[in-house]
């Protein structure tokens, strides 16, 4: 592409575009760099005390994000497998698009609806109290399972669509060949689409995990004490406890752990891929 673009719009223009791209990215990354620098310079803070006070927020953020991401991906994988096994090409495309529609109702809109349904006067709340699954004095809104359920339902539509998109990239001729050779629908989908669905799992997992981890609105309203995520704790420290230094410390530490974790996982999977391709050669 670079040669064609270079010949047509000129290599000078390409150089300008590259410089502008790097400049824009550096400019946009400056808050991240500032955060890391201020984390490094906050060594005089009492880390032990801060860790004791806010480790539960870090734990909640990571554990509930992990639980929600794994559950969402497993459910999406099952649904997509069901789509491929039970429906023809045109129908499964329509169903996948249908599943995607609720994702574009904004998070605030869907959260508001779940709050109404799970409140003590809502359908689900009344059902839980009526079946004596929950004591009358306890609100379903404060259950950790409600928090996880809301996070799953918010990101499930887009995960199903991601699984469907990856899974449908298997050529039709390969499916036909497997059918001629006597494979049934389930085994075709389990074996032929396995690799692509594994990629879909990785992509959907990263997206859902990052989104759940940085969620602010959902844990503020649902989950009771389980809703003490880093985002909500930072908000509390800034606006209620008026502890600006602790808020910055917690936020910077969390971002440092998360970014480092993702970059390490990314580089190690890249290196493993390189080593494997080298071994094949």
């Amino acid at each position, binding site marked *: 592409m670079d040669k*064609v673009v270079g010949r047509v719009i000129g290599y000078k223009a390409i150089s300008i*575009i590259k410089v502008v791209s790097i400049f824009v990215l550096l400019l946009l990354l400056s*808050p991240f760099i500032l955060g890391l620098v*201020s984390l490094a310079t906050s060594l005089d803070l009492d880390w032990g005390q801060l860790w004791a006070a806010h480790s539960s927020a870090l734990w909640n953020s990571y554990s509930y994000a992990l639980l929600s991401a794994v559950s969402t991906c497993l459910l999406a994988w099952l649904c997509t497998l069901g789509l491929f096994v039970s429906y023809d090409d045109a129908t499964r495309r329509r169903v996948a698009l249908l599943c*995607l529609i609720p994702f574009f109702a904004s998070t*605030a809109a869907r959260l508001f*609806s779940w709050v109404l*349904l799970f409140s003590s006067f809502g359908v689900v709340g009344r059902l839980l109290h009526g079946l004596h699954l929950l004591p009358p004095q306890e609100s379903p809104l404060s259950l950790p399972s409600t928090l996880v359920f809301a996070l799953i339902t918010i990101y499930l539509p887009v995960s199903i669509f991601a699984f469907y998109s990856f899974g449908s990239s298997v050529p039709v001729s390969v499916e036909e060949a497997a059918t001629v050779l006597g494979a049934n629908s389930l085994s075709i989908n389990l074996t032929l689409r396995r690799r692509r669905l594994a990629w879909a799992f990785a992509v959907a997992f990263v997206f859902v995990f990052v989104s759940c981890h940085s969620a602010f609105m959902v844990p503020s309203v649902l989950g009771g004490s389980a809703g003490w995520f880093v985002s909500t704790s930072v908000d509390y420290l800034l606006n209620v406890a008026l502890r600006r230094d602790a808020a910055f410390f917690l936020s910077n530490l969390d971002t440092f752990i998360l970014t480092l974790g993702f970059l390490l996982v990314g580089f190690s999977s890249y290196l493993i891929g390189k080593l494997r391709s080298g071994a094949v050669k």
Partner: protein
Amino acid sequence: MRALIWTVVLIVFLPVIYLLYAGLNNSEFMSADFRGFTLMWLTNAVSDPRFLQALAVTLLKFIVVGSFACVLALVISIGYLTSRRWFRIVVICSLVILFVVPPTFYCLNLLSIARSIGLERGLFLAIVAQTVQALPTVTGFLLLTLRNLNLNEFEASVLLGAPIPLALWRFVGKKIFSHLLLAFSIGGYISLDDLVANVYLGGDTGGISITKLIWESMRSDVNPAIAWYSLTLTIIGAFIIVQFARVDSQNSKPKDVVTRF
């Protein structure tokens, strides 16, 4: 398997269906009991000046964030595709970092930088934070689109003497127009979820968006008009579904063997 799929479809649609039900139910409280059909809550919402102001702010952000994210993503994508390895690694790492960093962290540190250069909270800072939030997704989408683009026809027409803008529109712009529109709407959609940016960076001059209006109403005065605020956001979000469907139908069309001129 079919039962599982349709149960999941029902569960993910339930919030939207319930919002419609609550908005049309003739009950002052958001109870589950049906007390007749009314459009009073819709009338109340539409005649509320705060809601109309919030709608204007939301639409403004949708358009500005969508456009900014689209233009920046296009520049970064062209830079990426015309570069060597080291540049690509820098771009990918930067986008991964921007994707991973929580909005709370980004907004707090952006505000510190803005204050150090004399900028105060307001709509501009909120738009910057929202554009950054949208940028990785929009760039990822445009990168895939541009990578699969065949530029041979474009180059051939330029070599044969066609004016560059015309050839650019005929052989590139037309092909990726629906994808660009989808990229724009993805950026705009991400701007709808703007509570963190609005709370931390909006300030008094940042304006109240529909999301913030829902948030404030949820905490103070829960009434069925909020259902219509939420449904309005859903209708704005429907813009992206239309773009998705357009791109999907374009991709599923059988391709001509012979290109017609």
